[in-house]
């Protein structure tokens, strides 16, 4: 089973079309392996990006270099998935 230990989901708020274009380009950088949970659509809408642990530093540096504001939406994806599994197990036992 694929694990997501240390992966984060970043909520990015692009300020203008130029920043949106930069964010769209992230998906094309295959080595980063980011997954756009909410794609860059317009400046009024947040963009959620699932970033694997190994790419976190690069992606955050990219955002900061380009002055694109972001916050950490999910701190560690695997923790949430473990909780989800635990709840399912508990429910099955009940």
């Amino acid at each position, binding site marked *: *089973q*694929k694990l*997501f230990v240390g992966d984060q*989901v970043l*909520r990015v708020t692009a300020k203008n079309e130029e920043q949106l274009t930069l964010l769209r380009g992230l*998906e094309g950088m*295959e080595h980063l392996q980011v*997954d*756009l*949970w*909410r*794609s860059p*659509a*317009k400046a009024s*809408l947040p963009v*959620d990006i*699932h970033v694997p642990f190994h790419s976190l530093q690069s992606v955050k540096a990219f955002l900061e270099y380009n002055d694109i504001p972001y916050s950490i*939406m*999910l701190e560690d*994806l695997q923790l*949430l*998935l473990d*909780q*989800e599994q635990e*709840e*399912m197990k508990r*429910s099955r036992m*009940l």
Partner: protein
Amino acid sequence: VRNTNSFSYSTYHTLDEIYNWIDSLVAEHPDLVSKIQIGHTYENRPIYVLKFSTGGSNRPAIWIDTGIHSREWITQATGIWTAKKIASDYGKESTLTSILNNLDIFLLIVTNPDGFAYTHSTNRMWRKTRSINAGSACVGVDPNRNWDAGFGGPGASKNPCSETYHGAYPHSESEVKAIVDFLLSHGNVKSLLSIHSYSQMLLFPYGYTNNLAPDHEALNNLAREALSALTSLHGTKYTYGTTFATIYQADGTTIDWAYNNGIKYSYTFELRDTGRYGFILPANQIIPTAEETWLALVKIFEHVRDNPY
């Protein structure tokens, strides 16, 4: 002992559990609910639709699908709750009883069974189908870019490794083709509601073009009314509009195909994520999500019942 009352609606379930539950629901409501196999998946799993019907022949119908993107688990869970709600309320609740006395409802709970099984076994974040793409190591097609409506345009990807890969040709995915064949052969479906998550939006055609649909005003008004009902329960805020204008250009989508094939009331729901959990919405939000969505669904059902075309 199979019993849909002892089933936990506030947790997520595997494909086997859902398919067993479907059999229980059908067994408990034989005069209202039946199970139809409309096809099979790439990996040969059956695709089951629940039919809610009080009789008549080829009545006007409403189609609902959940889980076309397999990782959007809140949608399959909402589908299960909704099916139980329809079965339980018929004959007891006047609005739903009246709706079912005039319309049939088809509900496809696991629209992408291969993807869904894969989210449980191997990769919780899987979105696409599981078909192999010739000449590529990447697996799967986005089944919501695979429909014959603006297929292959710039609002979908040509790259099989992309999450929005449109596939080799329209309806290449057996999961999509099964629905297309069913809807066309039925011929009397008046509304199609395709349920996704997350971001809290109610979208309607078009996604592949900036042009407004001929029924734009009617779709817009009904969306507003449906969302007013939805928000009244827990205050969950939705936005609404055409896919193109509200989010971005998206080609080959379910609702655009449906609309272009005569299904006027075609909508995509993007269910809630009020707590910023994305696709990992905690299970304790399943029932609130389903309850508020139900209010919007009923508004649309009523409108379809009262505005035949």
